[in-house]
């Protein structure tokens, strides 16, 4: 049977905020763009973002982009690339206004301007008083942004392939990316999409861990596709744990809850963040708060019969604020913890949340890989959003900076692709060998046998990640973790499907997602074992200090040979002076 083929100027894989913002830029420029997503666009996980998007609009308190830049560099524990950070913070206000013009129903201040709330790690005047930089649509900001972007894409007549799963990139021998092999979930039929440019916007990989705030579909597919295409992935050891997931369940209680005045207490009722971050307290950076919570729990000051959580207290914030500003948080707490936060505190603990690492790109969204001297763009390949590592978040992302990242770099990538298309007017010849290789990864699941199940192995993988690659790490724990993950990788070969039907076979999709998760788990664990320092979210008890002399550099992991390499941090901003590393206190 011949393989069905479609041709487009640009293939966008992923319809979260990143993919949709890029697609909008392209459709408005009348490029011929196809957006492929394994779920209907508004079901992408951007929809779950709660607290808001950062931009120095100064609607509530004085602010400017340069302070935002300082906070982001400091928040990143100096691992962020300062050119990309300057670019993002400078663009932020314009991008938020653009979203508002696109229809996002932001909450409003009395003067009719966009409402902004304080979030963690924000300051005025380079480390001074708390800033209020996070633009919010109640606590449903991601929903509001994703729906508005989808709606504008409807208007722009973007071509959508809903419920198509991208299996692998295809490329030729010169290293040009030529598109991707996909499968239509409803029919089970493969479809090759040829494109002059391909943009990966496949989101994060929270499903690496059992306890996470992410959707079932957040399996890091694009990152794994890049790895399989020979591209190294960057900084995978930096995985953000959010301090306030509902204990034992994982659903997120947004930082907005603390931004509106909530705070954390231990079993003695002590507001313990005052000890860890005397100045910023509960609004210190996320890595700091997560470590504080984990420390309270480890040292026996956790709450509940097993002492394994702390309490997020919001009742003093008042019924009115909770009803108006945090209605979604309240609904989650009521549904999943049986608690009304306006009356009682909510049990919370650190929960895997955000993939700081990912596919290395420059600030135009081009995927880059090292060559003899420096690095070069992979022709025809772009990446934006949580699957990419540009890197504006470095070792620790600030709340509210990811929604910003996806729209800023979604737009930038769209613009760069438009330029690229002007110079590359024709599709390159298809590379049959590469297509065949991708087909093997798809047909591997037609094998019949009696081995292990997808669900079983995924569960074990997540448990290993929770146990061996969590908030606190040591050489011993990680060495054992690497062993365990490599065993799981071996067992993958013995996994078989029971369901071999074609129509809407979700088991097969999950099998391919599991392969992706395994690749990323190996990358994460190996990168974490190698980095012998503590920086941002990567906290090594055996190396408790940041070590700028040896480790102010990005990790690169290659699938082939499971090899590591490193590249320098871009400490030089576009126009302003560099922020040199300083001890990080909040």
């Amino acid at each position, binding site marked *: 049977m011949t393989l069905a083929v479609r041709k487009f100027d640009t293939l966008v894989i992923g319809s979260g905020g990143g993919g949709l913002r890029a697609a909008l830029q392209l459709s408005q420029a009348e490029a011929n763009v196809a957006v492929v997503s394994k*779920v*209907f666009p*508004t*079901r*992408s*996980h951007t*929809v*779950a973002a709660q607290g808001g998007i950062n931009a120095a609009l100064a609607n509530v308190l004085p602010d400017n982009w340069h302070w935002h830049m300082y906070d982001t560099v400091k928040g990143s524990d100096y691992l962020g690339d300062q050119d990309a950070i300057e670019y993002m913070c400078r663009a932020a206000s314009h991008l*938020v*206004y653009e979203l*508002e*013009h*696109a*229809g996002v*129903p*932001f*909450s*409003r*201040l*009395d*003067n*009719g*301007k*966009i409402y902004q709330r304080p979030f963690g790690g924000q300051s005025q005047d380079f480390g001074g008083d708390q800033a209020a930089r996070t633009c919010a*649509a109640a606590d*449903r900001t991601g*929903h*509001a942004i994703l*729906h*508005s972007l989808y*709606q*504008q894409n*409807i*208007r722009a007549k973007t071509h959508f392939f809903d419920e198509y799963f991208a299996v692998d990139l295809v490329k030729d021998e010169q290293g040009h990316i030529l598109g991707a092999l996909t499968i239509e979930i*409803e029919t089970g039929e493969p479809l090759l999409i040829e494109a002059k440019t391909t943009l990966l916007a496949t989101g994060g990989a929270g499903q690496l861990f059992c306890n996470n705030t992410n*959707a*079932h*579909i957040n399996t890091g597919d694009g990152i794994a596709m890049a790895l399989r295409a020979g591209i190294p992935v960057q900084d995978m050891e930096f995985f953000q744990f959010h301090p306030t997931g509902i204990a034992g*369940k994982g*659903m997120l209680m947004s930082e907005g809850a603390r931004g509106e005045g909530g705070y954390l207490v231990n079993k003695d009722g002590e507001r313990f963040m005052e000890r860890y971050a005397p100045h910023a307290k509960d609004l210190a950076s996320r890595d700091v708060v997560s470590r504080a919570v984990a420390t309270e729990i480890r040292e026996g000051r956790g709450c509940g019969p097993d002492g394994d959580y702390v309490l997020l207290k919001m009742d003093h914030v008042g019924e009115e604020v909770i009803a108006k500003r945090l209605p*979604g948080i309240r*609904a*989650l707490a009521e*549904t*999943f913890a*049986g608690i009304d936060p306006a009356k009682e505190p909510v049990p919370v603990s650190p929960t895997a949340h955000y993939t700081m690492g990912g596919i290395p790109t420059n600030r135009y969204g081009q995927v880059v890989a090292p060559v003899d001297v420096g690095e070069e763009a992979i022709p025809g390949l772009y990446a934006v959003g949580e699957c990419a590592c540009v890197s504006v978040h470095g070792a620790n992302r600030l709340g509210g900076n990811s929604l910003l990242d996806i729209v800023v770099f979604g737009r930038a990538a769209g613009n760069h692709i438009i330029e690229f298309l002007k110079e590359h007017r024709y599709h390159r010849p298809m590379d049959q060998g590469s297509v065949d290789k991708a087909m093997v990864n798809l047909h591997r699941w037609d094998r019949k046998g009696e081995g292990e*199940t*997808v*669900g*079983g192995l995924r569960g074990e993988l997540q448990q290993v990640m929770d146990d061996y690659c969590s908030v606190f790490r040591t050489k011993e724990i990680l060495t054992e973790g690497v062993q365990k993950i490599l065993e799981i990788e071996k067992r993958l070969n013995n996994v078989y*499907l*029971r*369901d071999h*039907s*074609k*129509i*809407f*076979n*979700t*088991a097969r999709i999950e099998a391919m997602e599991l392969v992706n998760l395994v690749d990323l788990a190996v990358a994460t664990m190996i990168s974490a074992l190698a980095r012998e320092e503590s920086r941002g979210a990567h906290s090594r008890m055996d190396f408790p200090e940041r070590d700028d002399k040896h480790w102010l550099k990005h990790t690169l992991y290659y699938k082939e040979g499971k090899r590591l390499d490193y590249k320098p941090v871009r400490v030089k901003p576009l126009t302003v002076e560099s922020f040199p590393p300083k001890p990080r206190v909040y």
Partner: protein
Amino acid sequence: MKFRIYRYNPETDSEAVMQEYILEDITPGMMLRDALLRIKEEQDETLSFRHSCGEGVCGSDAININGHNGLGCITPVSELKEPVDIRPLPGRPVVRDLVVDMSQFYHHYRSVKPYLTVYEPEPEVEYLQSPEDRDKLDGLYECILCGCCTTACPSFWWNPDKFRGPAALLQAARFIEDSRDQATAERLEDLEGPYRMFRCHTIMNCADACPKGLNPTEAIGRIKQRMLKDQS
């Protein structure tokens, strides 16, 4: 706990059957989606259903639970009468098991031009909107397009190709009520005629079905009022 789940795979089955599954060790706080996932993992990998966020915000897992439409991920199994009957959303073509074809639903959504439309040049900052005007969007913008309402609406069952259905009409209201939008007249005009909106007989099934507590009936009422006001 006993579940009876609608099973149909067009490749192999000539008709649908209700298949029984027994699940032991129901944990407190377990949601129906967790139960379905456990059945799929432990007993029968071939059971197909959509789901993603697990917290009631993505709108993927709308199904019919003991005769009522709802989201599996925010429906606690402890609140369900046994045996629990689970079917696909009513009135839509079944793709497989609990997965239905939602194309018509999305078509109606797109048809109400669900995007903010402004004819004036854009300012370099945000459009101003008073908190009171913004409040008018509450109860409208939160829709997650799950389809629980539209597939519970008798008027939609009878005229699925002509009646826009409660979800799409709620979206229409979301833009009609938005003080920033300048296409109100076109939007209202587009909903005239006997079918697109006026097939709604205020039966209220939609509001009962909405898992997000939204009220499409009321939204439709607001559109009708706007039409009257515009005519007078």
